[in-house]
């Protein structure tokens, strides 16, 4: 059995190098039972790589990655496609790596809202439906440690909120330790215990602040939704310029940000109006 006082997974100063370039470096991370840790960061900041280091798919080139012995893992990877030559129903997909009872399968499919698709072929599912099936698969297996890499991509907005609520609920009911990845810098769950912001290294980490009082979020998402969403607010001490160089708070410009830098933001990186609005507001705050 797992020792409840030990973290399920811990990364200590972990780095991964590929053809002379460090994809991630100096990552410290722990996930315990019943805890949700969320990784956020821009594209290419090493979120998926960090998750794969935690899962043992990648072996670190420096530092130490440890998983509790006998750890039962569930993994929802980012963007997988099932070859159309595979005759694979949702039900068989649920049983991919574990034996499951029909009752467990039914329950998990109902929880993710696709009970009617149990005998549908996986290749005929829409993007959002497949994402729900992947989530149902790991929930039904009741793992100790769950890694969700962009679990709601392609899901419609109402569904997105419902699935985040479901993830929170299973954490509360079943006590999984969850490592969640989101590339939405501004939207992380209120239930997240710890947010880690990555950009090749850990920029900053801490507990997210509730944003229920924020007028922008109320307008955008409605009162009920705002209650389950939060914004992670922090001060920016350096800015990534479009050419890849970095301008620091004191005005100096360097090629890369430093491991001891705090959070950053991209001048050209945000494509969504919400992020821009938040950033503008924060920048106003700085002044």
């Amino acid at each position, binding site marked *: 059995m797992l020792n409840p006082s030990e973290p399920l997974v811990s990364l200590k100063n972990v780095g991964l190098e590929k053809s002379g370039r460090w994809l991630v470096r100096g990552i410290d991370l722990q996930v315990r039972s019943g805890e949700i840790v969320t990784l956020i960061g821009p594209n290419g900041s090493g979120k998926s790589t960090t998750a*794969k280091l935690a*899962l*043992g*798919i990648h072996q670190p080139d420096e530092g130490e990655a440890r998983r509790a012995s006998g750890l039962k*893992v*569930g*993994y929802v*990877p980012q963007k*997988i496609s*099932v*070859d159309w*030559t*595979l*005759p*694979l*129903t949702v039900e*068989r*997909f649920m049983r*991919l*790596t*574990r034996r499951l009872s029909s009752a467990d399968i039914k329950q998990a499919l109902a929880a993710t809202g696709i009970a009617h698709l*149990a*005998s549908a*072929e996986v290749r005929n599912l829409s993007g959002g439906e497949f994402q729900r099936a992947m989530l149902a698969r790991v929930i039904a297996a009741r*793992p100790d440690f769950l*890694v969700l890499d962009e679990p709601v991509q392609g899901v419609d907005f109402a569904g997105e909120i419902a699935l985040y609520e479901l993830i929170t609920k299973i954490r509360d009911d079943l006590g999984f330790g969850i490592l969640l990845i989101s590339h939405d810098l501004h939207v992380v769950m209120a239930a997240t215990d710890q947010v880690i912001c990555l950009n090749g290294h850990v920029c900053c980490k801490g507990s997210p602040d509730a944003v229920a009082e924020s007028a922008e979020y109320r307008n955008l998402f409605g009162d009920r939704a705002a209650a389950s969403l939060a914004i992670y607010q922090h001060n920016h001490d350096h800015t990534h310029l479009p050419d890849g160089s970095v301008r620091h708070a004191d005005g100096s410009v360097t090629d890369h940000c430093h491991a001891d830098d705090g959070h950053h933001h991209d001048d050209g990186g945000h494509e969504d109006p919400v992020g821009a609005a938040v950033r503008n507001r924060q920048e106003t705050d700085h002044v």
Partner: protein
Amino acid sequence: MFDDFFTRAIIAGVGVALVAAPLGCFVVWRRLAYFGDTLSHAALLGVAMAFLLELNITLSVFIVCGAVALALVFLQRNATLSSDALLGLLAHSSLALGLVALAFMTWIRIDLMGLLFGDILAVSVADISVIYLGGAAVLAVLALIWNPLFAATVNHEIAEAEGQKPDRTNIIFMLLMATVIAISMKIVGVLLITALLIIPAATARRFARGPEQMAIIAALIGAAAVVGGLFGSLNWDTPSGPSIVVAAMVLFLLSLSPVAGLLLRNRAVLPGEKP
């Protein structure tokens, strides 16, 4: 009944088809058709080695195919070439090496056509026992690794993260392929083994709702192709390997015809399946 060469050929051929088809499903799912070709080309080098070192042919073919499969795994991890270029390199170098080696051994007269296209006359009782013992071993190992292998086929990273050890399973699968090629060489010949792996699986795809079902249907279709092809081969005095492949192709075409579509619609519900 083993006295009749034709009966022996049918028994041997059906045995080969029953083993090849389930493996062939994985070849289709994993897009390994060219890998099958590479191994069968390497089989000719195995035959040359057998004559050179006075080894058992089946054993020698298995060793060479296994070595080529492992070389491929190693090269894929370390080389800067794409998989298809590596496969082409291995396939044609080993085929050429085999043909050159055979030509050097002037003291041996080999029926090259028999090696390339199969020879039903050559099937002995010993061959049949090798096919059935080897085939049973292959199917037993395949049944053992079926779930992890299928998980790794759907998604390598999920399989790895969830403790299925996909790398080890892949190597076992490649060795199973080498075994099948070694034992089926005499029936269909080295040039056409891949067809026996792929065509029944491709035909079964339309009728299957799940992976296990597809493997069973493919095995039955493969066996039917062997029986049909061998009767044709006897009737019209054609080489056994190509005749079996032509029969398999006919079954595939039938599966695309409207008659099969009708069958598909009115099909009875198979066990383990929801209506």
